[in-house]
């Protein structure tokens, strides 16, 4: 294993170099293009194109009778482009929705491609062997003339992305703005489509029809979980793409029965799954934890507010309260109540006295603050937004948990240190 590893990464054979350079180039170029289609929410366009190049490849072969990479590329480019044009045309000129048109264009072009491919295979032309490499991809077959042609395509794709970076950026984020600026949005879209088709054509022989979509979509989707900045996103997507290219090539070198393309996609998907779940800001795990923390905080604050409100009504905060008294003020689920009370006790906001509960000094001041913010906000809504007093409670219920001390001061100043809220309840003063 170790020897294979060293053999591979020192590029002991020229073939290794070819395959690695080829897969890395095409991974990077499709990852970059994919970022823009991703941001335009048109990721599946890559899927359509990769299926639609098949009839073009077959037609080129039918016309010439042999496999000339340049003519095959031209044919692939032509039908790939046509599929997107057809998709757009159908959406624009009928009531067919985009998802349907996508499936339609993808499957019909591919069906035609399969019909032509099987027709060629049954025709007995000996030149045709290897055409089916386009279906499932054969990165290891990227040698000689093919490597040069597809490598050049990948480089052209890369250069196009760099050259049109600004334009792509604008239409990816704000097409209306671009139109209002007087930019030729239509032409930029056409260039982006062409670059997408180019990236697909460059990669198709290595990874195949179905998995080409992953080369475009997955790096972009993964990168988006780590950053909001386009430049960083492009860089990350390119790194993910390159990494998958090298790893995929290595796996199929170490275990020759293993196909390169699917392993590249597996590596990419693995990175994607890790990012989806564990990315520090946007990962699913962090998001769930954050939601849980917020729900807990709200529960605790609501409990303290309820204790405060009952005390307010009784005119004293020194008496321990029963759970029934709290329940009359606001209903909590038994489960919530159990967890919330335990946490409040451990934070030192509540004290337990036999079966009753008593606010501590800290708890009292915190409960008072929440109640105060609630009423301040209700007053603000009625005074400044002219909302009827019976409509402000719901909004205050959620905003009371997020107002910062600075905002609190600002509200107080705006409302001129009020005493009563819109329901004539006293707004408790600050400690």
């Amino acid at each position, binding site marked *: 294993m170790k020897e294979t590893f060293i053999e591979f990464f020192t590029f002991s054979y020229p073939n290794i170099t070819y395959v690695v350079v080829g897969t890395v180039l095409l991974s990077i170029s499709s990852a970059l293009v994919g970022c823009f289609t991703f941001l335009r929410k048109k990721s599946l366009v890559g899927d359509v194109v990769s299926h639609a190049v098949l009839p073009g490849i077959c037609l080129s072969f039918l016309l010439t009778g042999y496999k000339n990479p340049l003519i095959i590329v031209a044919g692939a480019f032509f039908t790939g482009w046509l599929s997107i044009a057809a998709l757009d045309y159908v959406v624009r000129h009928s009531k067919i*929705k985009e998802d349907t048109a996508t499936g*339609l264009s993808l499957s019909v072009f591919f*069906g035609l491609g399969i019909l032509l491919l099987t027709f060629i295979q049954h025709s007995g032309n000996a030149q045709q062997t290897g055409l089916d490499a386009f279906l499932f991809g054969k990165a290891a077959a990227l040698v000689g003339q093919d490597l040069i042609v597809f490598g050049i395509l990948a480089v052209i794709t890369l250069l196009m992305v760099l050259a049109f970076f600004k334009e792509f950026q604008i239409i990816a984020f704000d097409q209306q703005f671009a139109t209002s600026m007087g930019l030729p949005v239509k032409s930029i879209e056409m260039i982006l489509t062409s670059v997408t088709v180019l990236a697909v054509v460059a990669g198709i022989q290595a990874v195949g029809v179905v998995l080409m*979509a*992953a080369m475009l979509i*997955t790096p972009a989707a993964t990168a988006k979980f780590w950053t909001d900045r386009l430049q960083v996103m492009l860089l990350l997507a390119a790194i993910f793409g390159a990494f998958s290219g090298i790893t995929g090539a290595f796996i199929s070198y170490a275990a020759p*029965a293993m196909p390169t393309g699917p392993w590249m996609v597996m590596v990419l998907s693995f990175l994607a799954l890790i990012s989806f779940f564990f990315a520090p800001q946007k990962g699913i795990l962090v998001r769930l934890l954050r939601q849980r923390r917020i729900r807990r905080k709200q529960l605790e604050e609501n409990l303290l507010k309820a204790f405060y409100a009952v005390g307010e009504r009784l005119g004293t905060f020194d008496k321990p309260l029963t759970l029934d008294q709290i329940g009359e003020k606001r209903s909590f689920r038994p489960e919530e109540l159990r967890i919330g009370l335990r946490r409040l006790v451990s934070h030192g906001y509540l004290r337990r006295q036999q079966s009753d509960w008593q606010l501590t000094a800290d708890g009292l001041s915190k409960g008072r603050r929440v109640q105060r913010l609630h009423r301040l906000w209700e007053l603000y809504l009625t005074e400044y937004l002219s909302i009827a007093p019976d409509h402000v409670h719901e909004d205050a219920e959620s905003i009371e948990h997020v107002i910062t001390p600075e905002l609190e001061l600002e509200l107080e100043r705006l409302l001129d240190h009020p005493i009563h809220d819109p329901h004539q309840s006293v707004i408790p003063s600050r400690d």
Partner: protein
Amino acid sequence: MNALIIIITGALVASSCSILGSFLILRKMAMVSDAISHAVLPGIVIAFLLGSDIDSLWMLAGAGAVGLLTTFLIEFFHQKGRLQTDASIGVTFTWLFALGVILLSYYAGDAHIDEACVLYGEIAYVPLDLIELDSGAILGPKALIVLLFILMVNLVFVTLGYKELKITTFDPSFARSVGISPSAWHYALMSLVSLTTVGSFESVGAILVVALIVTPPATAYLMTQDLTRMLVLAVSFGISSSILGYFLAYVLDGSISGAMATVAGLQFAVVFIAVKQRNRAIIRQGTAPPLEATKVLH
């Protein structure tokens, strides 16, 4: 005789697909069917390795489960991870498909299923694989019987659940308010899509199932705004594309399923142009609003 069996098989696949596809495209979920049809591959390969037959009920059930898992993952990444739907679909199905291809190449010797078959199937072999009873009597081609069963299941589902499917498709919030769960019907529909995909897999392959799910219903959708008529038209287009597709493939000596998809696409193109022409004529005369302007069906 073989030609007839092939055409009937194609017609059965096309009918099942068109029925489900009509609901899918109205729910704007055409691409989810694409995802499911690819993602069931690992399930099929694993079932193969476990020694079960491609037509066995276990296989159908297992692949149905994988299909549901796909639907669930797409929803999960979209809602919990805030990943946009198109990317969520793209990442999920390519991942599962890659897994399937890897399993396939790893166990290439053990599984009697080849890569090309995965993509476009081979309907021409359907008449050769017969179900033989213990008594030695021949019941009929296996795929034909399985597909007939699947069509029956689909018909029963759509007939019994017609009202619920319609309401959850057009007005989910109303459905919820009258106690019909949109997500329950969503998953029920998706399990049937998985079942149909797997059942049709051997005959038409992963991608051409999508052609039959999307294209005939889309053609029908151009022509009518009535759901029942749309279903009938979609099934008719599906069946006619299987008949014409067979003859096209016969003439060209090519893949029958590829030809079926091509014919379905041609039918769409013809109807598309005809509807467009008619609308133009109507607008010119100024007699009635164009068909496309009155969007009753979403």
